């Protein structure tokens, strides 16, 4: 799968890799680029027009394919009052394939890799649908903070300490750096 393609190097990587998806000519980057840009612009408009509580996102610099999202920890959970930054990278095959979303701020969470910020969330992997957009992804991640899936943890230590919320919060604040 050519999911992690940098749009600027997409042509090169497409020539280099010969995955079945590419060989079918399904996702022509040069052809889709305009459509992707258009869709991302629409999403940006929606995000800026409707003030969604607790989440925000904006492209990083001039590159519309790389966004920075911000999530406020859901109130009433151990993450309440904290702010997390995420990086979102869109490929040329967006929205047919999910963007690569990672935590930039260190996040101590059962389903987040503490070292590189990789998120284990089904809608970013096999349950992805073209219907999802930046807003819904951020809302899903926000709700994931409060309701982790402890059965398939990426951070085993966090999953084990989740039952003891006070201890968990202590551990969490050790890793948390203010944005």
């Amino acid at each position: 799968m050519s999911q992690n393609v940098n749009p600027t190097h997409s042509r090169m990587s497409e020539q280099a890799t010969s995955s079945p998806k590419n060989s079918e000519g399904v996702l022509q980057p040069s052809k889709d680029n305009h459509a992707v840009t258009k869709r991302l612009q629409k999403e940006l408009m929606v995000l800026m027009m409707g003030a969604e509580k607790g989440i925000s996102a904006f492209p990083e610099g001039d590159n519309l394919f790389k966004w920075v999202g911000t999530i406020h920890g859901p109130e009433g959970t151990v993450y309440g009052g904290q702010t997390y930054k995420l990086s979102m990278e869109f490929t040329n095959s967006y929205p047919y394939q999910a963007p690569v979303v990672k935590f930039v701020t260190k996040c101590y969470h059962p389903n987040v890799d503490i070292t590189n910020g990789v998120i284990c969330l089904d809608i970013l992997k096999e349950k992805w649908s073209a219907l999802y957009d930046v807003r819904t992804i951020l809302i899903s991640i926000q709700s994931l903070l409060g309701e982790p899936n402890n059965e398939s943890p990426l951070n085993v230590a966090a999953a084990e300490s989740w039952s003891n919320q006070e201890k968990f919060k202590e551990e969490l604040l050790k890793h948390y750096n203010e944005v």
Partner: protein
Amino acid sequence: MSRECPWRSQCPEIVRCRQLQALYGPTLFLVRRPGPLSLILRASAVSKPIKVRLSGRHWCSCKTFTTENELCVHLCWALLRLFRLSPTNTLSYQLGMVEREITSILKTAVPLSGGPVSRAAILQQRLPTHSEISKILPDLDCKLPTVAPRPVTNQDCCPICLEPLLQKPFPVSHCRHSCGNHVHIRCLQIWAKCNITDASDGLSKTIKCPVCRGVFNYEADMQSEFRNAPRSRPRATLPPLPAAPPDCEQQETGLMALLDSLLASQHNQEVRNERSSSEGITNSSEAASSASTAGRIREIITPVAVSVLVRALPEWKIPPRHRLLAPGHQCCLCLSHYEAGETVSGLQCGHEFHADCLKPWLQRNSARSRGARCPIDHMDLTPWLTERLISRQRTASREPPPSKSPVPAGANDDLSLRSSRLTLINRLHVGLHPHPCGHLPTPPPSTCSSPPPPPAPSSSEASRPTSGGRKGRLAAQQSAAVLHMVSLHLPIEAQEAAAGGGLVGGRTKQMEPRRGRLSWNSREPALHLEIPCRKISLKAKCQKLN
């Protein structure tokens, strides 16, 4: 204990279909449960409530059950969804149950073979997927029930590209087996390539719906739908029109030529009026006023001219079992499928639309697209429509007696009419270039942008040398021809178009030319449209008489 209804060892096919419909079709709502076995269901908020009773002989108040006396969707829904019977359980398709069986499904809400199950386990029990059912029932060659497409409203947008659906004439497809939501076919084609389930379940491949994750459609059906959907590449073209000179620029359409000729004569008229009234007006102000009126005329005349032209659209009713009734064919303007008996218009490029959708669309978009164009591939339809209009007019004019003709009777008139039509045909075909073998003085072959040759001296008042020059005179002649043509249609059309506008009354009573400058009022376009028309046609008549 004897059964009220005979025991069935085989599930009838119709019941299997209804079971599938109950499992995967539109959900029903349990409104009330007056007793443990008597239920009141509803399909939607507006539909009639349906009473269902499970007993020794099941009963339902719906029409299907009362007429067929066979398990209906509601009973299947109650048995499968509410009492969680598996479709493989023999109890799920019996017409009635004995007391022991009823107690067991009430107690456990699972099949007789299973042990008692906790409430949590029941809640977690998921429905069998379509592929699982097809494994259990390999003989069942029954596709999923289809759902009706949701009506497309102005707010609806494609879930993949987020573009509003009704804004552009892109064909759509709807989730045929789950939610009925619409998606652009061009978006879906890419989506389908990434989201086809394997054919390992023995069934044909299916495509996942991007909205509801249900079965959007079977791949084979989908491909035929893709093939049938209107595309911007024309599939069938009518025999080409007589070719224009090869060096002629094709952008200048027949309609624009019509407008330009009107414009040129209007300019002449204005110049003459202004010179007669006041000599002190400078050339620059003339040019400015003519440019502004040019825009106005174009704005006003194009929709009216197109409203005349749409009369020539071919229309036909869809007969039963026509190819347009196959899935995929759709009117790209309202995004709905065709039904037998609907009136359809086919265009020169091979695209079809509802006649009721196409005509308003062409009129609405005429000013922007400079004439009548196909909504899908933007093919210019003006020459084709003009040709049809003229040929229709020609066949019609053979029949009626001369007294009923809107043109005043006279031998000269008849002749001039015929010649003017020919001129019109020529002119509309070659754009701004008069046809070399036409009735007009042949100019040297040149491009549209090249300056016209100096004007030839003329006895007519209309062709006073102006900035328009020979082109102006030529245009006046041609516009006379055009307006003969248009005047045959315009009184009726303009009456409709302007809703009480100026162009009423017989042409013979309007022979008096009006004095003074023309005033332009954008509120009543028809009134002002009529003024230059009449003047020019009058003028042209004088010219011909001279």
